[in-house]
């Protein structure tokens, strides 16, 4: 069917790329309202954080606007001193609440709630020993704050742990993962096909690949470069080859991570060149650590494919890969690196070796 219909169908149909992505996976979103509230959608710990945020705002408003009533409610004497203290506490609550609700990473702000809870508990504790306090109400308030403290601790703990786990996506599932990316390159489909078809060129722009050696009979041997000189290798075979249109390959049995890829070349409108679409699939065996997958496919496989295609475009259009200076070991005042060392382009690695 015509290319545009195909593209539409792919994105709209149930069997399209989106179907095999787990529900919490999203393509990279632009920063802005979406990203700010991204953290608030979906997962339970973020809903809890939102609730705590609103609770803080509400409580803070009450303490600021009606400190006398709050004092009487929790059983402490209603005088200028306690009112003043309650107003300050109200300000603190509001700040925590606003921080939780508006900041993209609320973990720290929820921790600030915990600190506030500790402060509240100690204030209530000393109120219990004061002569003119309503002990029953103070005790009830203390119990309530203790409950909220537990929630705050639970929430902030979950949020903090989630932050570090995101790097090596635990979403690498037991079913196949599909990555699809497109880039438009200002060269003819023939030139681009010719470049990609010689698999020995792939490491030039696929930064985790060290080498691809043809073995004859449409087979090739692939090696990746991992940190500290480690390597992962596998064999693959060419499964489809339509000159100037399509190349597909598949790892052979015995590969540590079964993977396959497919690239299509299509003339772009006007004088824009060629639209190159790459699909990469891989199926890590059950129980494989995120780290192993990361070693083969990069820390963030989705992002890695995008970066590789960008490098591909640069190589074909400009003859080189854009880079800015990084701290190549031993510079006293390093220009902070543009890319982590494992992802520097070939020229830098060659010179640093």
């Amino acid at each position, binding site marked *: 069917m015509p290319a545009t219909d195909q593209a539409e169908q792919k994105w709209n149909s149930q069997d399209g790329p989106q179907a095999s992505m787990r529900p919490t996976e999203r393509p*990279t979103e*632009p*920063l*802005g309202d979406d*990203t700010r509230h991204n953290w608030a959608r979906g997962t339970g710990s973020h809903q809890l954080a939102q609730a705590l945020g609103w609770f803080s705002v509400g409580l803070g408003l009450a303490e600021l606007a009606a400190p006398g009533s709050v004092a009487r409610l929790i059983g402490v004497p209603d005088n200028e001193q306690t009112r003043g203290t309650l107003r300050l506490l109200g300000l603190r609550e509001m700040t925590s609440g*606003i921080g939780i609700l*508006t*900041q993209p990473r609320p973990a720290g702000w929820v921790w600030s709630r915990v600190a506030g809870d500790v402060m509240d508990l100690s204030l209530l504790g000393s109120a219990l020993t004061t002569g003119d306090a309503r002990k029953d109400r103070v005790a009830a308030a203390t119990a309530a704050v203790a409950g909220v403290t537990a929630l705050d601790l639970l929430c902030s703990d979950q949020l903090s742990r989630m932050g570090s786990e995101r790097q090596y996506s635990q979403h690498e599932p037991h079913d196949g993962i599909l990555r699809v990316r497109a880039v*438009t390159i*200002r060269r003819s489909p023939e030139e681009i096909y010719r470049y990609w078809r010689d698999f020995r060129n792939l490491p030039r722009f696929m930064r985790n690949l060290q080498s691809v050696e043809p073995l004859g009979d449409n087979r090739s041997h692939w090696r990746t470069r991992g940190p500290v000189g480690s390597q992962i290798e596998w064999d693959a075979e060419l499964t489809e080859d339509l000159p100037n249109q399509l190349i597909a390959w598949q790892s052979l049995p015995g590969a540590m991570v079964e993977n396959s890829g497919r690239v299509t070349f299509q003339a772009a409108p006007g*004088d*824009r*060149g060629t639209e190159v679409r790459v699909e990469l699939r891989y199926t890590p065996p059950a129980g494989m650590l995120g780290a192993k997958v990361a070693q083969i496919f990069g820390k963030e496989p989705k*992002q890695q494919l*995008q*970066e590789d295609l*960008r490098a591909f*475009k*640069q190589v074909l*259009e*400009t*003859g*080189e*890969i*854009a*880079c*800015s*200076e990084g701290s190549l070991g031993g*510079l*006293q*005042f*390093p*220009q*902070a*690196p*543009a*890319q982590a060392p494992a992802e520097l382009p070939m*020229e*830098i690695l060659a*010179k640093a070796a």
Partner: protein
Amino acid sequence: MKANCYIKRNKVEVQDVPEPKLINGRDAIVKITSTAICGSDLHLVDGFVPSMERGDILGHEFMGEVVDVGKDVGNLRIGDRVVVPFPISCGNCWACANEMYSLCENSNPNAWMAEKMWGYSPCGIFGYSHLTGGYPGGQAEYARVPFADIGPLKVPEELTDEQVLFLSDILPTGYMAAENCNIKPGDTVAVWGCGPVGQFSIASAYLLGAERVIAIDRFPYRLQIAKERAGAEVLNYEQVDVLEALREMTGGRGPDACIDAVGMEAHTPGPMYWLDRTKQAARLETDRPFALREAIHACRNGGTVSIVGVYGGFIDQFPIGAVMNRALTIRTGQAHVQRYMKPLLEHIQNGDIDPTFIITHRMKLEDAPHGYELFQKKQDDCLKVILKA
């Protein structure tokens, strides 16, 4: 070598750093003879642009002598005197082929960062945070210039550094701002901001045939330069109601085009300013929109608003209703400097414009932090600071 480095918010320091080396075949190394501090450098130092790291070398307006060339640079030789444009452009992508050099698709190694922020990435820029590639900047003794076969412009010996330095950024920027106004004979153009870019916008508007140019600012010394050197009619917004004045001055129509040469750190008298500063501090808003809002309100129906002041993120309360209902055209972008360098060099050689009129302070590179302070606080009638080797 010495280089002026960002340390933290509101602090820059001249430090000793390694000299740059050639990395790619199309690189060149330039020994810098003159460089300048840009208003957009102030946005970096004032903390409004994310991704600045301690030790980053600042500066994107520079010129000097070529001291080394990569093997693939055909048009430059060691010893050539060049002005280097601030956008880094490959010349081969669709954007460069269509002369949109500040949208080069291949020159930002941190394109992923810019994509997260803005959707797609513009070009890489010298010394302008890791968002635009983390390239070391030109407030230094040497700089590596990528794609040196496309960017740098050779300049004739008989013109001094001061006469041509601004071809690197602010003169083409002011010119593009005026060009974007689509000026027709009889047009009135209003310019918000009498900083260096505003001054060049005024001059360029006249070059492009504007009948009247009205300039708006609050610093009397800047308004004076706009009036006496650039030839504008001036309004001090702390003394007059700008919208009313513009309406009356244009016979009730409004200016045909409005240039916002102020950008994200706009100022307005009164409490609204402090409300927006608070919103910025609470990260509810990243940029301040006062000049832009006023420019939109002032513009005549069907006119053009040309945004050349730098913005980074989001503003509150954008008058989209005014824009839509009155059919305003908004044109904007980082300047496609390479497009304008040669024609503007000719204008300078013909005497149509003398860019040196904006220079108020000259100092050595070592004094850069002092220059930043004068420029930021607008002390000592500072308009433009040049740093010499």
